């Protein structure tokens, strides 16, 4: 059968930046097309144009043979296009049913026919094996369930083309499997899917055809059966890339020890429940877990934001009770925060200001309260060069730097203190492959030089490649450490969903 969706020569410019450069893309009924590309390659821009959030500068879109009015999300919806965003657009304080029917009824209708909506939802749930409780509050659902609600929302609106933007970013391996099962069912019933991702193995599993974007252009288009990881990775990045892998080292003395440490929700960082952790010199412990299971509390604890309410925390041999971020920095803890743009740096301040933020009170960066500009300038230019921070100079506002360069700035600030303990919380999330390799290599190097590293990540591949031992966090509890070399992603996945490891 012919194409049901046709994007032809879509071009979109933002100032001097060409986000989409004459992109053409088509979709056949029952087909899964994967859109592969690094951050900033133009995937999201293209989908926003399709969905009417942006208007293309050039190019046309046809859906089921009819041109799509540009710039109107309504038009895309009524033409049968549904989109599941990476960040869900659901109301947490509404029920599943309300979320799904929201916006489908006229504002002027007197009452809404709940029974009918309920029956229809039940029918859809049955047909596609998407079970959810229609009366549950969305805020109480797990991430996987929320995603199901998003898909049901699209189905309820009779979408025949479904766009999924990075749908697996927040799922456990098991949830990914069940999502793929659902997608196959949908395709079986004639749904066409555009699957946006930068995870190669997922794309190879689920798609029929792969379109690779790089710098706003289509650089490769191939049937999935003719593609392999290496060729796709190379097309995506433009060169061959090898991500680093940790090699085992002999661990040294204990640098950080948590003994039955608890943090309650009152401190505002989630719950940590009786955590035991022993981190040694020359060692990387990877913390696996679905987000929201206590990683934030553990990270806040080691960052000095949260204090241990029960149990003991020992940092470099010294018990820590009343802590603060400054205290942890002075005691040799380097902290790479999860949200680099809003916690790691102050976007409105200059690069040099962010580079000195942890050491602003140390001589010679300041003397008796006066900033020592000469020392600051030379430190900043040294760090910018050593860590290859691409900026227009140390006075540039940090918000204007790319994600990778912001992370390099944070790394520079942290490593310049020669920390003996490094907390790396999602250090490569959202970075492109080049920057990922750089950051991971830097962390491995710091560990070779004698640091102990706690690596928190939701990417199991990353954890398994870098860590010596892995601990899984679930509902605020830490598992026993497992040797990273004799465990599979599947086993960790099971532990991430709360099941004990088979002996």
């Amino acid at each position: 059968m012919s194409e049901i969706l046709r994007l032809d020569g879509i071009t979109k410019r933002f100032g001097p930046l060409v986000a989409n450069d004459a992109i053409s893309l088509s979709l056949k009924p029952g087909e899964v097309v994967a859109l592969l590309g690094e951050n900033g390659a133009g995937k999201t821009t293209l989908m926003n144009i399709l969905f009417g959030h942006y208007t293309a500068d050039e190019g046309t879109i046809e859906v089921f043979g009819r041109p799509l009015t540009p710039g109107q999300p309504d038009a895309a919806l009524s033409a049968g296009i549904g989109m599941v965003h990476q960040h869900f657009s659901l109301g947490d304080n509404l029920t599943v049913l309300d979320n799904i029917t929201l916006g489908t009824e006229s504002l002027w209708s007197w009452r809404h026919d709940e029974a009918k909506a309920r029956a229809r939802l039940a029918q859809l749930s049955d047909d596609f094996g998407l079970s959810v409780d229609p009366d549950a509050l969305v805020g109480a659902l797990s991430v996987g369930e929320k995603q199901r609600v998003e898909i049901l929302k699209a189905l309820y609106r009779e979408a025949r083309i479904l766009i999924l933007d990075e749908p697996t970013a927040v799922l456990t391996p098991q949830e990914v499997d069940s999502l793929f099962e659902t997608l196959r069912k949908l395709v079986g019933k004639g749904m066409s899917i555009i699957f946006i991702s930068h995870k190669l193995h997922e794309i190879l599993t689920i798609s029929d055809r792969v379109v690779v974007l790089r710098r706003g252009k289509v650089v490769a288009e191939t049937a999935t059966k003719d593609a392999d990881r290496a060729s796709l990775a190379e097309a995506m990045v433009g060169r061959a890339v090898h991500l680093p892998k940790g090699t085992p080292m002999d661990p040294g003395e204990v640098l950080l020890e948590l003994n039955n440490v608890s943090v309650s929700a009152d401190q505002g960082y989630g719950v940590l429940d009786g955590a035991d952790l022993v981190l040694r010199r020359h060692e990387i412990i990877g913390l696996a877990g679905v987000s929201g299971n206590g990683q934030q509390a553990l990270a806040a604890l080691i960052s000095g934001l949260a204090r241990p309410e029960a149990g003991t925390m020992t940092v470099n041999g010294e018990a820590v009770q009343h802590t603060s971020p400054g205290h942890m920095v002075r005691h040799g803890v380097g902290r790479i925060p999860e949200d680099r743009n809003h916690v790691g740096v102050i976007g409105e301040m200059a690069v040099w200001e962010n580079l000195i933020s942890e050491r602003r009170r140390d001589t010679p960066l300041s003397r008796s309260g006066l900033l020592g500009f000469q020392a600051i300038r030379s430190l900043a230019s040294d760090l910018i060069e050593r860590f290859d921070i691409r900026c227009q100079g140390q006075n540039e506002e940090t918000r204007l730097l790319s994600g990778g360069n912001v992370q390099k700035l944070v790394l520079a600030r942290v490593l310049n203190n020669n920390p003996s303990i490094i907390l790396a919380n999602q250090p490569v999330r959202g970075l492109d492959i080049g920057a990922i390799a750089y950051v991971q290599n830097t962390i491995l190097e710091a560990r070779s030089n004698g640091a102990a590293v706690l690596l928190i990540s939701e990417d199991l591949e990353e954890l398994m490649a870098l860590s010596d031992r892995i601990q899984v966090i679930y509902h605020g509890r830490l598992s026993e450490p497992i040797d990273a070399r004799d465990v599979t992603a599947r086993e960790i996945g099971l532990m991430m969903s709360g099941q004990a490891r088979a002996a």
Partner: protein
Amino acid sequence: MRLEPRTSTPAWMIIGAPVTAVIVALGLCAVLILWTGESVWQAYFHLFKGAAGSRFAITETLTRATPMILTGLAAALAFRAKLWNIGGEGQFYMGAVVATWLGAGMVTLPAALMVPFLILAGALAGGLLLLLPALLKNVLKVDEVVTTLLLNFVVLLFVNFLLEGPMKDPMSLGWPQGPPIIDEGILPGIMAKSRMHAGLIVALALAVLAWAVMRFTVWGYEIRAVGYNADAAGFAGIKVPRTIVLTALISGGLAGIAGVGEVAGTKGYLTLDLSPGFGYAGIAVAMLAALHPLAVIASALFLAGIYVGADSMSRAIAVPTYIADVIVATSMLCVLVSIMLTRFKLYWRG
């Protein structure tokens, strides 16, 4: 319509934007003047003449600008730390009250010590008044916009009580006014046949000092960091609550000094109408100056000129003085838009 962040802003734009904004504001207000049936040129001519057209006009504008520079600095510094101090009026009066309490005979020192003593005491009073909302914000997360604003009315009623009771000048023939500040405590005049006093020099010096503190010291760095992003500042080890308390003491102190200057410099005794809203005007001054301490000087001079000029304009032609408030408000809006345009590029088509 779409906004995109600029990667860099040329210097001419940073200087030119507020100037253009003020010109646009004057243009907009011309419509209102036309409505009164008077000539726009006449109105603005008289306004300018009243503000800067003679030696007397200039000294009056400078006298009026003196407390506005100080309350403007108070707002600018606090707003830099995102401490929304709307209580400049109350802090102003606390400064004036303490200056009256100590300066009307309770303490007598030689003038060289008495004046600095009163200024410091007033600064402390203003600072302590803002300490309460700052602590409430730190500990209980109480919105300081509400607490500082409401404290203004509390303080005003307190001043009313004082002037009707314990602080009423027995020689005032029944008027609710405070006893005169003793001669040693009076801020010396700085120009013959004018009301200008040493407070102006203090205000200018403090503006330069505030600029230097913000730019060259660790304190200034921390205040700016907390204002831009308290989460990131706290993560980097800056003690956010302490920085807010410090900012509160400085900000309230500056507004308190403004009160001392008016009671011990311009007027000589405390009354309920000592301030025609200097505390609130400080907010406008700070916004117009884009929170830059040195720009506060220019901004306070401009606003003082508008108010002083509008008075004399309304005497010359039939345009009410209220036009001054409209010009100030319109200027503020225009400056806010212009600041946004220096940071973002505007595209009319998506």
